[in-house]
């Protein structure tokens, strides 16, 4: 079983946010990488083994939607956590097509650690061993037997 915590990439054009979030999360990850726009973010992603990404949606050069679309072309699975401000309805409704793991509203930093921890776990574990829920029918039925016993 992997004991890796995973590597985190934080992408935001607001440097203060990148600094704050990095400081808050540095103990959760093996390594924290940063970038200040989507283009730089993609370069850092390609050069390193990234397990989870925290990303703003509105960024210069390449916004969050364009970035996740580009990354999904090379890595279908890495969890994306969007840390967003107001006024980005169209982008937020567009981004879902590419699969976002979670969302947080700026400037709220509460629960960020909890969400990132889950994201890193999923990123490290991967999803290749995910099974169809129909593969678990016998397991569900065993659980149901416990309920049925009461009716006997």
């Amino acid at each position: 079983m992997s004991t890796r915590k995973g590597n985190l990439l934080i992408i935001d054009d607001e440097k203060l946010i990148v600094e704050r979030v990095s400081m808050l999360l540095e103990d959760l990850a093996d390594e924290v990488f940063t970038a200040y726009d989507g283009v730089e973010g993609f370069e850092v992603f390609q050069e390193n083994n990234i397990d989870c990404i925290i990303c703003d949606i509105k960024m210069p050069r390449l916004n969050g939607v364009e970035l996740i679309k580009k990354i999904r072309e090379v890595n279908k699975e890495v969890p994306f956590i969007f840390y967003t401000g107001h006024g980005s309805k169209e982008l937020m409704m567009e981004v879902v097509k590419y699969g976002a793991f979670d969302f947080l509203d700026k400037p709220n930093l509460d629960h960020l650690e909890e969400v990132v921890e889950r994201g890193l776990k999923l990123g490290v574990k991967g999803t290749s061993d995910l099974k169809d829920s129909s593969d678990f029918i016998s397991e569900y039925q065993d659980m149901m037997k416990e309920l049925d016993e009461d009716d006997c």
Partner: protein
Amino acid sequence: MIQLNLKLKRWESMNKKYLISDPDTRLVSDIKRQFEKDGIVIEVAHDGKQAQLMTYNNQYDAFLLDMETKNHTALEVLKYCTVNKPGLKIILSAKSKDYFVSFGLKDSDLKKAGIDDVLYKPYQLNDLKKIFEGKEKSTWKNIKEKSSTSNNNIIVEINDEELTKIPINDFVSGKIVIFDCFVKMNNKKYTKIFNQGENFNQEKFSSFKNETIKHLYFFKKDRAQFISFMNDLTEKIIDSEKIDIGTKVKATKNLTEKYLEEVYIQNISKNTVDEGIAIISKIEKLIAKNKDLSYFMDQYEEFNPEDFGHLFLVTFFSTIIAQNLEWGSPSTTEKIAFGSMLHDIGKLKLPLEIAEMDALKMSDKQFNLYKQHPRLGAEILYNSRGVPEPVRQIVFQHHELVNGSGFPNGLSGIKIYPLAKIVSLADYFANLLKREKCKPLEALRIFIPDKYEIVKFDAEIIKSLISGFIIKKDKAREKKV
């Protein structure tokens, strides 16, 4: 419904509690010293970050935020509070009016941004006190006691659309009736049985409860009052060791349904988000404190799956699922429950016949229209203040299915927002109960062997739903032994 006969204490006499964030320590000491003489509690945040934490962890009647706040600027703190604490009264202070003018901001702009008032330094402490106390948001606590009049039991003519109702057996009151109460005689004719502000008379109330009178009516405009009152009362009911589970569940259900009626009909406002979160905490507490939910599982027929009953059920089931997930947490459960409450809000934009129809019975044309409601719902919420992004995404994605057969985007597997997957299953399950007219356990027995349906949902989430029932049944079994 058992008349609780609670003697509710007059909560308006409880101490007010205010939060202050201002780097001027001398001013803050003066405020603290002056206000605490009057029994007002003043808590002080030393910087913006602490202020955010304190608003998250505590309830305040108002928050005085100075523009010079550092380490999370005043603007950051303000943004945080408007998103996470939309019901909090916020007063900004600044060194002068020119401060905002220099940013091109007028008082009206500040009000739009969620600020209740602005003070310019130097200000008088009395002025601060008046602003703190100000015009309170309408709550039941402001209802003044009036003497009973002989103007009771009169028959009045009221448009049915002006009134809302609750089951008469589920009605509870404190010492003072907080709104005019009616029973229905026939169309548009009602008997007024209580006036707002008069003392509640149990004997008189009981005399109206008979086979033909099933509901108590009150004006829709008083619904917010009802919600505010029941939110406070339900907290006490759930915490009480002496009150039976049936009463607790009914109180929570009625509160949730009335709240949802207000949200779906009146729209979401600054206050309603906070009220909703307070209700969610009660549902969570109800489930967590009462592991034996055999009452609920056996008495399911009483839970009308029509209208807002469905939304309550979805919230209830999704909370059970969330509490049984390995990765579930209080904050996750709160988002899931709130998303559950609002998940069908997009139906408000559909033609009524489609909004009320069973999706399985729709024509292709009707179903195509119906498939718009998640997007429509998300758009409503993007135009509403204080709704967190996770909740919007739940509403947008609650009909996406793991095998890709859902809508509106046909997402599949891991692309679907995990929290939305929970609401998706809870929604399906609540609809199954309605369709099959069966109890929750029977619905599980129908659902689990159905391979066609099982593949639409996440395995972990299905297991959490089943687990939720197992725990409840185990506790019921212990009780019987």
